[in-house]
């Protein structure tokens, strides 16, 4: 395992050197490096429990770590296919390539960290390296907000890590965190500080502000990694703080709601809030990437709720949703990136009808959103189904409602780019664009195939998840052949897929039998007797859900709150500066006297 880190470390240097010579070469090298990483981590699947040390960093292979690392590597690997084509848009291509691999090293290290210090070091490495990549996108402010929100999480983790190490006297994760079974008060503090990092990184309401900014304006090739990959680091922290950290024992005495301790329930409510908020905001967006970013907020809510449940179904669902969302979101971002490469924009109202020029990209996007919306037979359905089953089994009706809202709301927002970018009228300026380059198409097709595979044969992943559940001592999810069984329902995705295929086949036959249709142009449509000759005017891409958006357009947004907070801090700083750092020597002497008097009066007592 150490070899993997050394290899990746060396290859990041090599990619820097190569990129200095020829940026594209370095970018191709990132594909090879991440593929090598993917393969070598895959080969570690049977060596669970092995520990290795590299200098003062200690690593251990765990099933969960392996699972997370595989997800991340998949996303990094597939997104890397896009890197070579964006080199000319970046002003520091060499830095991009090497930071791309550095952030990969950081995340993988995080998942395999054996002690808390390694965990934190890897975490921070991933954060700042990815921030420097985001900076090369369209917005400095986005990178900055990303860093600040992450820093809130990092610093609270650091506090938790150090306090844990101080109290428990060990830094080995499991040993240190299980110490708190005997110290619930300190445990509550550590739990709060620790999970905060998870919340900020997953982008849970109200810490979601960085996602739309960073995902929306990062270089197109890095948005999939941010959304599909780096966000999952937060999920890992959430996992650690509820599964390894004995959260249910620490809060054993607190008020319980349907068997869930109140603090954890509160966190779940935050997850539910981010589902609802993310959905509503995603519906409003005019930019495809920002829309997908808000959808990541919503999906983060599912993941958080699932992981916090710590039961047979929802927990498995949460862990599986990680993978499904990573794959689907990466594919969707990549599809949008491919479109942006050809058209130069991600604004939905400026696009339209791209399907007639980029059908494969369209298909990729379609499958991705089907998975993201949780419609069978794609992967997203299985995980959402498990979460629903788990929530309704426990009777957590509020959370279940939010989950349902997010699920149905997702139809609305995922359909928007589909309709506005790919369907509808093709603008004349995009008449001559071509399908995405074969290298990019390969990457997208890999992800698409994965989405489909996960949907039809979820048992492949659920077996690994069951292993994780057994390690944690909770009821494992039961997989029987291709069927997934739970206490209150079962589903056999292969059968669902077959029946669906059967229905499709029936109708296809019907369609073929019926008389053939005549192909007409897109402008040849019913227009209520208006004469419209410009395709752009006949394209409905702006304010798609206007009547619905109108219902909540006045709702306050969270970002201004942060801005105001930042302004207050600045004002406090300005006050301190003008009050204590006045350029007048009289005042400084006055302060000396004041301090002296205070001390003398205080000491005289």
């Amino acid at each position, binding site marked *: 395992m150490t070899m993997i880190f050394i290899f990746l470390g060396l290859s990041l240097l090599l990619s820097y050197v190569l990129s200095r010579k020829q940026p594209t070469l370095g970018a191709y090298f990132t594909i090879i490096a991440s593929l090598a990483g993917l393969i070598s981590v895959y080969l570690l699947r049977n060596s669970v429990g092995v520990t290795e040390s590299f200098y003062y960093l200690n690593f251990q292979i765990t099933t969960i770590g392996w699972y997370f690392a595989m997800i991340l590597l998949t996303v990094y690997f597939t997104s890397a296919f896009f890197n070579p084509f964006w080199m000319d848009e970046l002003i520091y291509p060499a830095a991009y390539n090497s930071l791309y691999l550095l952030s990969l090293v950081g995340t993988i290290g995080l998942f395999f960290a054996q002690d808390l210090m390694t965990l934190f070091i890897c975490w921070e490495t991933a954060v700042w390296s990815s921030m420097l990549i985001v900076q090369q996108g369209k917005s400095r402010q986005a990178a900055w907000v990303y860093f600040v929100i992450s820093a809130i999480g990092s610093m609270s983790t650091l506090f938790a890590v150090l306090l844990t190490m101080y109290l428990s006297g060990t830094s080995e994760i499991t040993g240190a965190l299980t110490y708190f079974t005997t110290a619930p008060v300190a445990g509550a503090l550590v739990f709060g500080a620790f999970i905060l990092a998870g919340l900020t990184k997953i982008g849970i309401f109200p810490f979601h502000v960085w996602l739309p900014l960073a995902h929306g304006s990062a270089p197109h090739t890095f948005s999939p990694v941010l959304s599909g990959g780096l966000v999952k680091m937060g999920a890992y922290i959430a996992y650690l703080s509820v599964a390894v950290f004995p959260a249910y024992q620490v809060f054993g005495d607190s008020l319980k709601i349907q068997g869930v301790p109140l603090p954890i329930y509160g966190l779940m409510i935050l997850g539910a809030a981010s589902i609802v908020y993310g959905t509503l905001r995603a519906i409003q967006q005019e930019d495809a990437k920002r829309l997908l970013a808000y959808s990541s907020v919503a999906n983060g809510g599912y993941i958080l709720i699932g992981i916090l449940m710590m039961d047979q179904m929802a927990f498995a669902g949460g862990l599986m949703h990680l993978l499904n969302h990573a794959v689907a979101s990466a594919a969707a971002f990549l599809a949008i990136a491919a479109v942006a490469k050809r058209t130069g924009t991600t604004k939905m109202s400026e696009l339209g009808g791209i399907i007639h020029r980029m059908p494969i990209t369209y298909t990729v996007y379609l499958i991705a959103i089907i998975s993201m919306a949780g419609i069978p037979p794609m992967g997203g359905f299985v995980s959402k189904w498990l979460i629903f089953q788990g929530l309704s089994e426990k009777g957590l009706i509020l959370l279940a409602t939010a989950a349902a809202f997010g699920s149905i709301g997702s139809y609305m927002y995922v359909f928007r780019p589909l309709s506005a970018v790919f369907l509808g009228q093709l603008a004349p300026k995009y008449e001559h664009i071509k399908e995405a380059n074969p290298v990019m198409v390969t990457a997208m097709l890999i992800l698409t195939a994965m989405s489909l595979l996960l949907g039809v044969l979820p048992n492949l992943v659920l077996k690994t998840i069951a292993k994780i559940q057994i390690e944690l001592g909770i009821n494992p999810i039961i997989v029987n052949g291709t069927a997934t069984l739970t206490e209150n329902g079962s589903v056999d995705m292969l059968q669902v897929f077959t029946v669906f295929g059967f229905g499709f086949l029936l109708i296809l036959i019907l369609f073929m039998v019926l008389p053939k249709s005549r192909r007409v142009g897109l402008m040849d449509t019913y227009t209520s007797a208006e004469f419209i000759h410009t395709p752009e005017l006949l394209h409905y891409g702006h304010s798609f859900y206007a009547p619905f958006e109108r219902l909540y357009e006045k709702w306050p947004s969270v970002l201004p709150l942060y801005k105001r907070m930042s302004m207050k801090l600045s004002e406090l700083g300005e006050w301190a500066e003008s009050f204590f750092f006045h*350029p*007048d*020597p*009289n005042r400084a002497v*006055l302060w000396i*006297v004041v301090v002296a008097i205070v001390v003398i009066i205080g000491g005289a007592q």
Partner: protein
Amino acid sequence: MIQFAGIALILIGIYGLMTTKHMIKLIIALNVLELGANIFIISVGFVKNGLAPILTADVPSDLLNFVDPLPQAMVLTAIVIGFGATALGLAVARKVYGKYQTYDLSVIGGEE
């Protein structure tokens, strides 16, 4: 008694430093402050009707009421240092005057 004179001078010096905005007056106030401090130091080693701490033939070897020489040595050094600071301060003040034609800091305002 002499201590109180020192403290009074210190307070006067501080008062001057807190109130005046005239650079030369500030330096004067600083000097008053240092003077007060020096007097205070002298008073630490002062012994009434004491003798100079110099061993001569007619001084008994078990002499007890001699003046402590250390504070006096200190004051000497302190005066020299104070002098240096004052000279530098005046030079700076002169430079400022050359630039702004005034010694009044409130007229110059915050220099950026």
